[in-house]
């Protein structure tokens, strides 16, 4: 009975939302009569039909036509063009011609930056899941590369990041070059490392090792150490950082977490040692507790008794709470 009532209420809400949306669309269509949006003959026909529509579908088609025209009309204010884009991009996501026009807009440095940025975001959202096999992919990648290469285009950095997310070889190698030669960097070190770390098959591990050991920024070191999780050959370096008592706790924590992936055996013995050593920082001991607690092979007796001990007797409030949280529950 409750489910039936819930469904009835849900349906009523959906109908109300649809009615509101239709009303809003009709108002916009009527209001457009006084605006000077450049419409093609076809678009004008659809908009007129939408104004006098007898059903929601005609209203929607008319609104889409109006929004498309507004979006690509250079004479319209950027804010209205963005609003038009946001209203229409999802319904146009299967329209090849619309996508190709949107790509050209993204690549046009003469268009307002905020519009191009929004267009790129909307394009990515609308094409999620279809980008790798789409027919417009070559045009999309080429446009982004052209934007990313331009030193004067304010969209260059974002274009480079999108390309890196697409695993574009040129983009990944550009990021890598920026890590090796900071003067040539187009994005921050942290951003570059994060993008490069998403692909195991890059060849940036030598530069990660340098950054992991020698960088003024702890945050950069942490990102570099994270990347080394994918390189089992980095085991000795990770151990060295982890055992370095003068290293910041956050850096040592990153080394412990990466060691867990790069070399389980080395991680296992270190995690136990750290848990048992009261002189180790709370952050490290709590991390050791957490990673051991959720080990796929389960926890041993030693772990349970040690964590129990900490939960009852530690001087640190933080550590006691962590121990109470991570203590395996007795069944």
């Amino acid at each position: 009975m409750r489910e039936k009532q819930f469904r009835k209420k849900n349906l009523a809400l959906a109908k109300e939302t649809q009615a509101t949306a239709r009303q809003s669309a009709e108002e916009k269509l009527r209001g457009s009569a006084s605006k000077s949006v450049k419409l093609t003959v076809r678009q004008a026909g659809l908009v007129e039909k939408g104004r006098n529509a007898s059903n929601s579908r005609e209203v929607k088609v008319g609104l889409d036509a109006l929004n498309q025209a507004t979006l690509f009309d250079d004479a319209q204010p950027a804010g209205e063009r963005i609003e038009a884009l946001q209203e229409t991009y999802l319904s146009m996501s299967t329209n090849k011609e619309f996508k190709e026009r949107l790509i050209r807009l993204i690549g046009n440095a003469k268009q307002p930056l905020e519009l191009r940025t929004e267009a790129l975001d909307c394009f990515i959202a609308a094409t999620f899941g279809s980008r790798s096999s789409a027919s417009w992919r070559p045009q999309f990648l080429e446009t982004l590369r052209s934007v990313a290469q331009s030193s004067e285009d304010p969209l260059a950095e974002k274009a480079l990041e999108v390309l890196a997310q697409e695993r574009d070889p040129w983009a990944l190698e550009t990021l890598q070059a920026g890590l090796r030669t900071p003067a040539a960097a187009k994005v921050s070190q942290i951003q570059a490392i994060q993008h490069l770390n998403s692909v195991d098959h890059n060849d940036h591990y030598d530069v990660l090792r340098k950054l992991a050991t020698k960088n003024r920024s702890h945050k950069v070191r942490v990102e570099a150490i994270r990347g080394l999780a994918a390189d089992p050959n980095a085991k000795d370096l990770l151990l060295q950082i982890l055992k370095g008592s003068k290293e910041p706790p956050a850096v040592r924590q990153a080394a412990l977490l990466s060691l867990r992936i790069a070399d389980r055996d080395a991680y296992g013995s270190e995690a136990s040692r750290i848990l048992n050593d009261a002189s180790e920082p709370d952050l490290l001991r709590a991390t050791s507790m957490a990673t051991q607690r959720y080990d796929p092979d389960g926890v041993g007796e030693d772990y349970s008794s040690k964590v129990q001990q900490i939960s009852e007797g530690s001087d640190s409030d933080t550590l006691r709470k962590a121990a109470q949280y991570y203590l395996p529950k007795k069944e």
Partner: protein
Amino acid sequence: MNVPANTEGLAGTTPEPTVAGAIANASVEGLLLLLDERHPVYEGRSENAVHRIRGWILNHVVVSDERFLPFIREELETGTHAYSVAAAARALRSQQVNGGAWRPLLESALVRVKDDSIQFHAYPLEVVKGDTSAKAELRRILEEAPRQAGVIQISSVRSYRESSPILDLVLEDQEGSQAPFHEIFLGRPSFVTFFYTRCNNPAKCSANIMRWAELGQRLAEHLEEVNLAAITYDPLFDTPDRLKRYAEQREAPLGNRIRLFRAPDQQIDLERHFALQVGYGQATVNRHASEAHVLSAEGVIVKSYSRVPWTIDEVIAELLAEQ
């Protein structure tokens, strides 16, 4: 490796423009040697660099020579990288083959490839405006290929019996149990294939192990009479727990006679024994061939599948014939 003069000295540290120049002037023999994943030119390079180099090599295949066909076939069958797949399609046009037989491969490549704007007049290290795309190249050759079906004539399946010494190394399985090679493989015929868990081409290792798992299911009643083994190219990263998870996710009926392995200490010996066609970047494999072998009950390699897919029925027939 006997390297022809104009490709001599090419190594993983050779700048790519230099490699490209050597490729442009290479002989047929030189190009063939460079297509081998073990060539020093690939050592330590990223996967993207390897694709560029191999694509450039295929772009310079202009002479019809059947020895190129396994490489072309493999790229069309499993490749996803726009540049190397397009180059393979272009290379195919220079070969004297029955185009109709290659249609299914070309059509599957058309679906699989991650298209991109490309060009072939300059080595693609810098960004140059493209004048074609991978799909355009594939469609072009499809338009030229006759529609009548045929069979691809390539001999990449090598059959041989040699009295090779039994491999002296220890393997570790997905449970962490270690045993010497002879203990695992002697006494019953075996099928051995190779893979690694970080392979990012779903048409290669993942598909291979799924097929291997299905082979195991089909042989369920005969599993005491044969061995099925899958050995990783990446022993440092592919620890037993990772091997186990990988196999379970692909529904492999793991047991005493169907196991995944790594060679914890002697990977080089393993590669040498099976002549594994694999190259390594800084952290993991940068490129590998599709390969599998049938071993006799004496542990001798009697059949090798190199750059061709093995079929379940074929392997079952081979294993039963070896009993």
